[in-house]
Structures are given as C-alpha cells and as structure tokens.
C-alpha cells in the first residue's frame, strides 16, 4: 500500500511547511512527524518516514535520526491509547509507582507493553510539567491529573468505551488542521 497523507492532512502539512523561510523547510520535520504519527496508526513505520523525507526533500536518514532521538515518536506499533505515566520526583513523591502498579494489575501488562487486544500501552515517561497536580498521566494530548486509583479506573473505562485511537494531534489541532 502506498503511504500518503489524505487531502486534509496534506493541506495541513503544506501550511506548516509554509511557515519557514525559503530553503528551510526541514524545520517542519518535527511537526510533520507528529502529524504522520496521528495519521498512520500512532507510530512511524519506515515507509512513513520515507514519505516525510520526500515531502521535505531531505534524505531518509535525516528523518530516522530525528524520529529515534525524540521520545514522543513511536518506532514500533503501540496500543490505541498510550498511557504515559510520569515517574519523576514530584510524581514519585505523591504515588506515581502506585498508579503504575494499579495500571499494570488492571490491564495485565507491564509498563512498556501493549494489551493483547491492542487497546492500551503503558509507558513510563519523564517529567511532564504537571508536578503541582501529581500523580498524573497523559493520554494523547490530554493530561489526567491528581490521580487516585479510583480515578484511574474511571478513565480507563471511558477510554475503553470510546475505542478511539488517541494521539497528540487528535483531541486538539493546530490552527492549520481545520
């Protein structure tokens, strides 16, 4: 299957590219990787990265080296909802490990794994800037804060029911993505 943005996504991509000065469109790489991840099942397969390279007229290696550097880009398939739990100091002090434990027990997987039905992935992540509302996790662009195990149960149920893939681009959109 040929990898290609649909018309709306391509329009967004071009609008992003147009922000930068002549000859500097490589600057659009990170935003386009976010867009691509949202458009193509939540992760960046090699053909997807190659497609982005073509759009920006750069070498594929320039895309791979960037995609593998930043922790928000998934280079392997992930569940429909990636639960990114902060485990750094301020969250750790207020019970992040209990939240992770609870998620692991509830979903019967370890952090770093995806449920057999492909619905959920648990990911341990570093400080998300939500220290004053710890513990917390992020699913797509949404922050879930001041978590308790009861709150986690409700959130997981809601996400399970919706069955939607959550991505950073999903809940909110750049102005260009209308």
């Amino acid at each position: 299957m040929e990898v290609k943005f649909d018309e709306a996504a391509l329009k967004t991509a071009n609008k992003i590219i147009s922000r930068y000065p002549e000859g500097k469109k490589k600057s659009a790489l990170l935003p386009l990787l976010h867009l691509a991840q949202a458009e193509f099942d939540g992760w960046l397969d090699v053909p997807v990265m190659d497609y982005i390279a073509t759009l920006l007229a750069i070498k594929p290696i320039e895309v791979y080296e960037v995609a593998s550097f930043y922790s928000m880009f998934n280079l392997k398939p992930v569940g429909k909802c990636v639960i990114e739990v902060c485990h750094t100091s301020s969250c750790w002090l207020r019970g992040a490990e209990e939240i992770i434990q609870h998620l692991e027990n509830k979903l019967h997987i370890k952090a770093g794994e995806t449920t057999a039905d492909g619905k959920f992935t648990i990911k341990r992540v570093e400080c998300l800037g939500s220290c004053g509302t710890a513990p917390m996790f992020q699913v797509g662009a949404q922050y879930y804060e001041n978590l308790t195990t009861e709150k986690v149960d409700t959130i997981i149920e809601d996400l399970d029911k919706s069955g939607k893939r959550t991505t950073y681009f999903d809940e909110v959109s750049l102005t260009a993505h209308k």
Partner: protein
Amino acid sequence: MSTKLLLKNDHVANINKLEVYKQHGGYASAEKAIKTMTSDTLVDEVKKSGLRGRGGAGFPTGMKWSFLAKPAGVPRYLVCNADESEPGTFKDRYLMERHPHLLIEGMICSSFALGANTGFIYIRGEYFYIVPILEKAIEEAKAAGYLGNNILGTDYNLELHVQVGGGAYICGEETALLESLEGKRGNPRMKPPFPAVAGLYGCPTVVNNVETIAAVVPIVAMGGDEYAKIGVGKSTGTKLISASGHINKPGVYEIELGKVSVEEFINSEEYCGGVWKGRKLKAVVAGGSSVPILPTNLILQTADGNPRMMSYESLGEGGFISGTMMGSGGFIVMDETVNIAENLYTFNRFYHHESCGQCSPCREGTGWMEKLTHSIISGHGKPSDIDLLWDLQTKIDGKTICPLGEAAAWPVASAVRHFRADFEKLIH
C-alpha cells in the same frame, strides 16, 4: 500581600481572550513600545530593570539582548523557550495556558526591541494541548493589528509561529533548541559562536524563557527603574515559583524576590500551606531537579544563621557547601518519610534518559550513576558505592559541551554531601 505583576489578573475569567485582556490593560505595553520607543530605548529599559533570565541560568536579559549582532540585510530572530522540562517546574505551562496574551505581548515588545520580524515559540511536545491556545491568541492579536504587517500603523512587521518539540529535555538548552527548530536532533552546539551572532539558520538570534518574555510587559509599562525597585538587590522583580511535593497546596505562586523567606513560603497559607499530613520537613530542591538539594536546617537558614530568603543571592549563599540556587523556581518539598537516595534515583534515571549522547562523560556517566543508585536502593549496594558516586559526578561536572552534565552531577553531589546516612541505611 506581595506584589503581583505576571499573575495580577489570574482571578479574571476569560483573561485568555484578547478583549478581556485588553480591558485589564493588555497590549498597552506593546502600543507604548512600538509607538513611543525605539529599539535602543527599550533595550535600555530592560537593562535598567535588572531582569534576569527566568529559565534557570539567571543571566541578565538586557545584556543578552545587547549582544545581538545586527549585520545589515540579515534577519534576526526571537525564539521563546517554552520547552519547560526541568523536573519540578510547571510555571511556563501555567502562564501559557491561562495568560497566552501576556506571552504574545511580551514577544511583540521583545521582538521590536531586537528588530526581529519573525518569532518562534518552541513548546515542548507534551504540552500539545497548549498549542491551539497560543495559536488562537496569535490569531486574535493579528486581527486586532498587533501582529502582521504595519503593526498599529507603523512600518514594523512581525509574524509569530508556534513550533512543537518531540519530547527531549535537552531542547531546553538554547542551542539544542535551535537545532531542533531546524528539524534536527537536539544536540547542543559548541559555543562560540553564540546564538546572538549565529543562531537560528545561522542568523543572529535571542532565545528567552516564557516567563522572561512575559516580564518585559510590566517593565515596558512601569519603566526599568520602577521595576528594579521591586525585589531586593540584584534579584529584581517577581518570580513564578512552581511548588510541588509534600505540601498542602501545590501550585504556581508569584513572589516578590527577596521579600519572602523560605520558611514563610513553605508554611504560609498564602503559598504552600505547610508540609502535608502534619509531618516534618526533611529536604527541599529549591530550583528544579538540577540544583543542590538541601536539608531542613540549611534551606531555612544560611550557614550564618540568617533566614534564607527566596532570592537568587540568598538561595545561593554558602555556595555548594551549604547553599543552592534559584534555578527555574521548581520548588520540590520532601517530608521526613523520604529516603533521599531513592528520590535521587528518579533524578539519575531522568538525566540518563535525557542525555543527548554527544559527550562521553555525560552519556556514560549518567547511565553509571543511575545503575549505581538503583543497586543501592534495591539493597545490592556496597559501602564503596557512595564514594564511587561522588567520584563519578566530579568526572562529569564541567566536562561537557552543555550544562546537562552539571545538571546531572549536582543532585548527586548534594545528596551524598548532605544525606550520606540515607545511602548507608540502604547498604547492608
């Protein structure tokens, strides 16, 4: 009551909308700057204000601005560092989410001072939900004539764009940020040249933190001299403190620098509301994960027995032997139940994860420190591991291209220096 400059309208509903922001005096500074001031007079006002970079380094902003090279025919850029990723810090997020126009107005004033016609707000990717808030504010400001071509009928033009990152602490370092903005890995650059000479796309560039840029708005409004009267000594103005950890009221608080003691900040109802669960205070990381952690006696008082105040100088008093730093203002409080070695493990894991890998001392050293601390807290440590940890951090400190090396070394040094007993407790 303390002076509020950045959060003075925090209680106002819909202050994120241009109309409401204007009703409360918004965009008066942009008008004043563009219509009545020149680049040079504006830079002078910021110099006079004594404003220091609010991202962590505390470098005088006016001086940074005055270094900007101005070769004819070469574009200059203002880049706002909204990559806030220092553990314990969430004040830029608060400011952007609730007061987007304050940042946009600050960007307008600052860009005008620098003669920049394009500005970027580089925001960490995890803050994706804030992107539409900022873009909406930019759209409103443009529609009202504060952005775009011929701003307020003058010949000044300015376009602002929001750029999302991809999840990398290192991009908060200004040259790594510029690399990332150019679509590359966030590897810090060798300096010189400094960004003021060769920054974004090789053009003269100033990179300033969100809070620093926002502070330009009240400085333009009241003038640099008046701003400098707020605060104490070289700690002028106000600072946003992100308070977290074992306190009753975590949150973002604006303090007048040098006027609030650490003790008051922790215990007063106006701020943290005391240590939670009626427990005793054990330690504080006063300025984000990188700054030295201090035990209760040293954070509340300096070695000379004076009350420690919330200012650059007072927090720094005693150097690294008995003092710490203001840093980003990420204030993490720990109660008596915390073993500091266990908390240190979360920092060591963080810095290992975030090292860009360019310099061997940082790439290898942060991983080694993480492993050692992990071994200690899992009950597999040897007594000699504590000295090995100390030795390791001395081999990283000052031996890397960018300050991530120091940022990783200092928490280790201070934890071993002040809390050796906590390590020993875990070693059988």
